[in-house]
């Protein structure tokens, strides 16, 4: 079973009197345990595609399947619970709730997921250690570097072991060294837990880590490279 399957997705935005095809007949299949980079110049449709896969936005036409379930026809509430339980999100920046500490940011989502208090404590400690933040559990986002904040966001995204993690330009605000560290973390989690990663980026350094590189331009897939084989 593939982790993600998109069939003939189209999404058109109107800007002024112009129609912009953010997704133009996109079809795509990502296997479980995949590690995929979506690369495109700015405005190429990366975010639109990730949002469609994550059920944040509904395409105009086409089908989206995640973990064997068709999701483009689900209700808002069902989509929210799908995201909560099965999909982890990492965004570009300002990803965390500023008034909560690293641990609380991770635990807040678990609380919503219905994890017991002891379970939350245990899991947040373990996951923060895994992303290399042991000892920084009680820091607020403002007291951490950009890289550390992104690690908290990753910890939050993967703490409940989702099958799929969607990351939208996660390194855009990070320097190259920190970017590398984050990508190494992704690779490790992918190999360790078998989590599927789909990472939108236009950062060449990030693309280098991907097993598979999908290139988009103006809402269309223009290239699909298996980098392992290459």
């Amino acid at each position: 079973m593939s982790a993600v399957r998109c069939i003939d997705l189209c999404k058109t935005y109107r800007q002024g009197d112009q129609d912009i095809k953010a997704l133009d007949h996109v079809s795509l299949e990502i296997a479980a345990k995949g590690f995929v980079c979506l690369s495109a110049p700015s405005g190429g449709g990366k975010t639109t595609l990730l949002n469609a896969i994550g059920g944040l936005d509904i395409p105009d036409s086409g089908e989206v399947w995640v973990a064997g379930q068709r999701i483009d026809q689900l209700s808002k509430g069902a989509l929210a619970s799908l995201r909560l339980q099965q999909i982890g999100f990492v965004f570009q920046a300002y990803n965390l709730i500023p008034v909560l500490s690293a641990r609380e940011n991770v635990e807040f989502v678990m609380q919503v997921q219905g994890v017991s208090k002891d379970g939350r404590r245990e899991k947040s400690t373990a996951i923060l250690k895994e992303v290399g933040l042991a000892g920084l559990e009680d820091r607020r986002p403002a007291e951490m570097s950009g890289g550390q904040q992104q690690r908290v966001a990753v910890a939050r995204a993967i703490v409940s072991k989702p099958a799929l993690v969607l990351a939208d330009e996660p390194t855009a605000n990070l320097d190259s060294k920190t970017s590398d560290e984050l990508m190494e973390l992704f690779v490790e989690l992918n190999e360790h837990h078998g989590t599927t990663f789909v990472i939108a980026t236009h950062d060449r350094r990030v693309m280098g880590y991907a097993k598979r590189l999908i290139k988009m331009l103006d809402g269309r897939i223009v290239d699909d490279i298996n980098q392992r084989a290459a």
Partner: protein
Amino acid sequence: MNITLRLAWRNLWRQPRRTWLTIGAMVFSNALLVFMISLQFGMYDLMIDNTLQAFTGHIQVQAPGYKDDLKMRQVVPAVNALASDIRRETGLDRVAVRSAAFALVSSEDRSYGVQVFGADPQHEAQVSSLPGLVRDGRFPTDANAQEIVIGAVLARNLRVSVGDELTLLGSGRDGSFAAAVATISGIFDSGIADLDRNIAEVPLGFFNDVFYMEDAGHAIVVVTPNLDDVEAYRSRIESLLPVGSNLVVHDWNALQPGLKQAIQADLSSAFFMYGVLVVLVAFSVMNTQLMSVLERTHEFGIVMSLGLTPGRLGRLVLLETVLMGLAGMLLGALVGGAITLWFSYNGFSYPGMDQLAANFNLPSRFYPQATLLTLFAGPAVVFIGSICSATYPALRLHWLHPVEAMRAV
């Protein structure tokens, strides 16, 4: 502490000044409400007590219809026996028989139509403050003495003083001509214009002779220990009425409808003002929470994309409001309670209050009394109003689209 609660609490202190301003508005209005309501209710109790204790009492047993026509023949038969029954069965000792007639009262110079009451010298002082308000002379002590007590205004109008004689002309219970001469034994000054101008009292035995009452009377007046007990005693007395009698037992509200109306009029104008206050506070809360939701659009977009529902975020906004509201309620009750306490020792008065006070024979300084009700009734309404007004910003989250929200900075 629960994380959501912690989150709500910390969110409030992101903008401490705004939060304090909002809480401050709540504290101010709550303190004002506590003080005003404590003052008002203290005043009403005093007003009711003073008015009723002057003459009316809390409960009266009468013939049906008597209250409205005051016809001589609408009597309570065997009235003394019934009064004794009531005394014995209810354990109340403030029970007195009274009768009344309209009569022309004449001095050497002048005549006035007044309501002459026959009052039992032994018991009248327990149900009415008039005997105690006799300034000149004394209240009769002998039930058969040919004596009369009149109000200060009537005395002035008749140009008489203690020791002078008055002639009474009227008609008896059976419609016959009734006439008597009585010596003024005392003059009372109640401060209630109506009583001082239009009322005279004579001993009950003397009254019964003059107006052919035999063993009947017009009312049994009862005073209960506490206003709150009136209804219980009223129904108890109703059950004591002789079988087959059609007598009625009125409570003070039926006897003095003007009193409750005056209170209600005062209450409704006060409550209108309080309502305006609550609405103002509610709008300030709504404004605060709208701004705070707007500022967090991006953040809310992120957590919604993580799978949090708008309902959950709405509850967070409501929880924040609840925390502010609780702070406002407790601080408001505290400040209002302290102010009330201070005035309960030192008294309070404001211009315009003396007029209402004079109408009901009240002192012109008031001593507000804080009770649990007056401490929390107003603040509770402000609290509920605040929560209600925060539901709008909370519900607006349902229209928030995570993708668009995240685009906001």
